[in-house]
């Protein structure tokens, strides 16, 4: 029963989250984004106290249910393991010694990386972010291809339910990194079940620390046990020491598989205080040191003082910016680079497909963190989706009104490259796309108009840059700013005009 509940919860969480991530057509309601916000590391980074406390309390009460039921990467591994066991029916797990030093090394490494502004490592280790990148860069293109196939078929029959979507290769580097990580974790799951969760994943390690003292635990009733070893052979976390009838609770992910395979009902999930006193005390003592360590870790993490700025190197875009543009709601470069784990949920949800993983624009430490590129489109004036979905607080939610006055970059105009100047023909494409008329057309010679810019009311949406037809260099582009600003838009009065003549 417990196992069935676990499977139901984990499958629905992961499937709904995945659908939310890959949904390009706006079918999934936006509130499904909460499935990303309840993930551990995003909640920690966004200092979402309520979620964080709930997750820790849940772990203190039930053990690592987060790992078995909420973490989408957990389900991915379970699916791989399931398939591997279908393929190789003789596959057995066996008890392994805990890799305590290794586990905590990854936690410390993640912490040091975070504090030194080398956020890329945190993002690579975070299970939620790894899964989301997998969904964005691998599942979504497949989903879109399926959509385009359906469109082809349905449109033949004059049914316009589906429409074609362009499938962009967001970034080759990101795709490779995602493929490697997904394949690596998949391989580990194929061979050893949940070993990733118990040797590398820092979230698993931290939660494992709490689950040691959890109220409910899986335990073996030695009196009823016939030492058949079935539980150990089926334990994908390899945490049941069948010889000694002991379970390493810090590694148990509460999948409840063992309970279902036990023929004598000797293994069950129960209050931990029913354990013999002797055992309990030992457990508590063993964890004290790590408890202190975790408190220290959390405390240091909370201060987040040491993030260093990394040198900025131009990217491969046609427009090379001195400063990369961070997405709306990111406040400033420092805030953004500290909080973003490169889960790429914003990359996927951006309706204009302009949020792309950086290569070296933010420096090595900020690799994979999203930046705005206007090659294929520009930022919609009314759109606030990226800041709405961001689970880590790297992008803070903006209202539509706040978005209208949020400056994330400033327009630059190079008259010598402008079509109106070089060809002396009309254009105005930039001004046409400018929502605030920070780029507006002023009289030039021969009935022509030429752009004039006012950076004080520019939001940095990139409409001008995107549409500028000048080659080989865009005559107008957006330069990033390290600190987002609020612009002031003049309110204009609606005038009433009485027209009673056609004029011809």
């Amino acid at each position, binding site marked *: 029963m417990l196992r069935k509940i676990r499977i139901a919860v984990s499958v629905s969480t992961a499937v709904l989250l995945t659908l939310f991530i890959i949904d390009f057509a706006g079918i999934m309601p936006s509130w499904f984004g909460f499935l990303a916000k309840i993930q551990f590391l995003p909640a920690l980074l966004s200092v979402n106290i309520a979620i964080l406390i709930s997750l820790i309390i849940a772990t203190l009460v039930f053990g690592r249910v987060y790992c078995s039921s909420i973490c989408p990467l957990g389900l991915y591994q379970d699916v791989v393991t399931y398939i591997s066991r279908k393929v190789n029916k003789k596959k057995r797990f066996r008890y392994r010694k805990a890799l305590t030093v290794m586990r905590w090394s990854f936690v410390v490494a993640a912490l040091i990386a975070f504090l030194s502004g080398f956020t890329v490592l945190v993002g690579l280790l975070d299970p939620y972010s790894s899964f989301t990148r997998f969904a964005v860069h691998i599942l979504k293109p497949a989903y879109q291809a399926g959509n385009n196939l359906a469109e082809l078929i349905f449109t033949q029959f004059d049914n316009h339910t589906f429409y074609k979507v*362009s499938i962009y290769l967001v970034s080759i580097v990101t795709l490779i990194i995602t493929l490697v990580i997904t394949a690596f974790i998949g391989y580990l799951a194929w061979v050893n079940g949940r070993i990733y969760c118990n040797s590398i994943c820092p979230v698993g390690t931290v939660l494992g620390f709490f689950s040691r003292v959890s109220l409910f635990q899986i335990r073996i009733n030695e009196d009823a046990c016939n030492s058949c070893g079935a539980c150990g052979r089926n334990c994908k976390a390899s945490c049941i020491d069948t010889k000694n009838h002991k379970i390493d609770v810090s590694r148990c992910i509460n999948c409840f598989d063992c309970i279902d395979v036990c023929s004598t009902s000797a293994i069950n999930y129960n209050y931990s205080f029913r354990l013999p006193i002797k055992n309990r005390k030992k457990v508590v003592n063993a964890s004290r040191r790590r408890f202190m360590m975790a408190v220290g870790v959390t405390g240091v993490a909370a201060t987040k003082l040491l993030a260093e700025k990394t040198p900025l190197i131009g990217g491969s875009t046609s427009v090379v910016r001195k400063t990369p543009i961070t997405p709306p709601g990111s406040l400033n470069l420092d805030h953004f680079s500290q909080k973003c784990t490169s889960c790429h949920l914003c990359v996927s949800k951006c309706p204009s497909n302009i949020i792309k993983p950086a290569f070296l624009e933010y420096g090595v430490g900020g690799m994979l963190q999203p930046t705005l590129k206007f090659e294929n489109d520009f930022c919609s004036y009314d759109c606030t989706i990226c800041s709405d979905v961001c689970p880590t607080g790297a992008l803070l939610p903006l209202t539509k009104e706040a978005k209208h006055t949020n400056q994330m970059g400033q327009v630059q105009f190079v008259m010598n490259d402008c079509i109106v100047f070089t060809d002396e023909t009309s254009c105005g494409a930039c001004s046409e796309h400018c929502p605030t008329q920070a780029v507006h057309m002023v009289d030039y010679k021969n009935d022509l*108009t030429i752009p004039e810019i006012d950076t004080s009311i520019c939001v940095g949406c990139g409409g001008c840059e995107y549409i500028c037809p000048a080659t080989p260099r865009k005559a107008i582009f957006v330069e990033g700013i390290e600190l987002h600003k609020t612009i002031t838009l003049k309110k204009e009065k609606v005038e009433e005009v009485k027209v009673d003549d056609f004029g011809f």
Partner: protein
Amino acid sequence: MDRRNFLRALAITGAAFSIKESGAMSVFSQSGAASKSGKPYDLVAVMGGEPAEMFRKAIAEMGGIGKFVKKGHSVVVKPNIGWDKGPEMAANTNPQLVGEIVKQCFAAGAKEVKVLDHTCNDWRNCYTNSGIEEVVKKAGGKMIPANEESYYSEVSLPKGVKLKKTKVHQDILDCDVWINVPVLKNHGGAKMSISMKNHMGIVWDRRFFHANDLQQCIADVCTLDKAAVLNVVDAYRLMKNNGPQGKSEADAVLTKGLFISQDIVAVDTAATTFFNNVRSMPLDSVGHLAKAEALNLGTMKISNLNVKRIKL
């Protein structure tokens, strides 16, 4: 008269009075309106009414929608839906007008009516927030996406001066007739955005236009063999400043006008002249008008045309 006949007559009379005038019925009453003068009108201008009402008057004077849309026709209605803005901004064609046109096409026996535009903002938001999707679907029409290059096919424009070929939306090429329904707007680069400029919503690569003499390319694209069967200019609200997108409602002016003609140069000239009521815009500054006239696409001399002016 016996009792039975009396009752029958009474019932029929009652039924007749209970029938409401519908768009479909007005189609029947439209035919022949223009023939009273003997010569059909080249251009009809209306002002002072609501969008749908003005269209009904204008199309009746043009000889009825049935003159342009035949039974079984597949029709495309091409409004301007370029921007993610509401109707009050005048950035897009008025939805009431679009809805009325779709309705009338069906009343004239159209097999299907498709509505599309290659938008500048996110197309789904444009279709929805312009209010056009709702009225079109209500009238039984279909909103067709135009957001992807594969929806377009290349056509050659042998008469074009700068624009020799361009990719045009497949549904425009495949339909029996299409109706061009722009909104009257100021445009920062092209000076005015009306019927001719509205063609930039049926092509894929607009950047080419901007890079290769915009005014000439706008005229060139109108040499497309498949010309719109009607141009209906929505001037219910026009965009006076900061066009074609506009900053706020303050850029829109409620002028309650509508112009309709098969002559694209004439209707754009008329609309530009009308625009001069709110802001000075010399005809020769709107380069594509003269360039289109030079390509024999129509005339700028409205005085030579048979024009019907209606004030409501």
